[in-house]
């Protein structure tokens, strides 16, 4: 760090054992053009405030652990550079999630929603003896974008609907479900649609679109949600028609 400069970061602190509410504390950091916000947080933890809590792991925008709000915008701390904030910045925990301590949030809801949408191949009876399950580039292209999600939760922090209604399944979980719905090797679409069709499923989305804007991997959750709405509507029409047909058949049986 030959060309070191100083910058003021306001970091939200919260110690559940001591504080009744979070507060901002100012910290001065040393930085150069290669310093990321994660580097800055680690510098503070190592040199200034060892009790500062934040999550991180890979330092290369793959693990999705270090999501924080930087100047009110959801960002990955490892992928955001201090050089772009020459006048200082505020660092807060991800919005719309309960704060556990400092920059650490409780992601339990988010993880439960992902689990609820079964993001894995369902109903494929092929065994290893059958050989590889081939897929054409066109079939891959249908879901490839949506498979980029790293579960970082930035889209949840960007979604006002999730903020207003924490029961909403939210962008990432639905995107991951949709990714498997579009996979030619999967047969679990109807199973996932049962969850997606619910009140807190796709129809809670009002297409603000900010989720796609903040997604660090360009997974485009807003697109997945809109496509799921179309699937959900078609599924509803199909179920009504099927119900009508079944009624006619049962009436026919009676006569």
């Amino acid at each position, binding site marked *: 760090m030959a060309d070191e400069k100083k910058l003021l970061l306001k970091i939200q602190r*919260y110690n*559940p*054992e001591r504080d009744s*509410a*979070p507060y901002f504390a100012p910290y001065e950091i040393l930085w150069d053009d290669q310093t990321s916000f994660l580097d800055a947080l680690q510098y503070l933890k190592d040199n200034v405030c060892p009790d500062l809590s934040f999550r991180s792991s890979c330092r290369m925008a793959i693990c999705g652990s270090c999501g924080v709000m930087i100047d*009110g*915008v959801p960002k990955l701390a490892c992928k955001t550079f201090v050089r772009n904030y020459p006048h200082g910045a505020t660092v807060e925990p991800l*919005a*719309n999630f*309960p*704060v*556990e301590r400092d920059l650490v949030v*409780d992601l339990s809801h988010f993880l439960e929603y992902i689990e609820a949408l079964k993001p894995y191949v369902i109903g494929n009876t092929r065994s290893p003896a059958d050989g590889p399950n081939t897929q054409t580039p066109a079939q891959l*292209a*249908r879901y490839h974008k949506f498979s980029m999600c790293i579960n970082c939760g930035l889209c949840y922090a960007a979604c*006002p609907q999730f*903020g*207003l209604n924490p029961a909403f399944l939210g962008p990432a979980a639905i995107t991951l479900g949709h990714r498997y719905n*579009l996979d030619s090797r999967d047969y679990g679409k109807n199973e996932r649609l049962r969850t997606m069709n619910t009140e807190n499923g796709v129809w809670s989305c*009002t*297409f*603000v*679109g*900010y989720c*796609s*804007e903040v997604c660090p991997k360009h997974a*485009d959750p*807003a*697109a997945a949600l*809109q*496509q799921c*709405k*179309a699937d959900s509507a078609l599924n509803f029409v199909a179920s009504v028609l099927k119900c009508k047909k079944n009624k006619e058949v049962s009436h026919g049986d009676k006569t």
Partner: protein
Amino acid sequence: MATKRKPYVREVGCCWWKSNPYYRFYMLRESCSVFTVWVSLLLLLFLFSPSSFAALIRHPVICLLNFAALLASLLHTKTWYDLTPKALNLPEDKLAAIVKWLWVVTIAFSALALLLSLL
């Protein structure tokens, strides 16, 4: 041992949308629907009382409101067509062509409607 957890839940206020320019534009986009309601009411009036409608639309305030409704519908059309590709899982080049054709059809239909109303 009792837990020392005390998760802090930040309340979302009714003015959440004011904090971010993206949210502000979203609210502007959605508020276009108010003008759609206005035009619908005007059309209902035309349906049930054409003479009152003809007298009303000449009023300067109504002209201003209708002009605002035109701008709002243009903004809504622009944002709607910009967002259309998200709802379609198609290759990029096809999406660009679809949006172009949506504009062509909209402009052609609007020109035809204007022509018919002037005849």
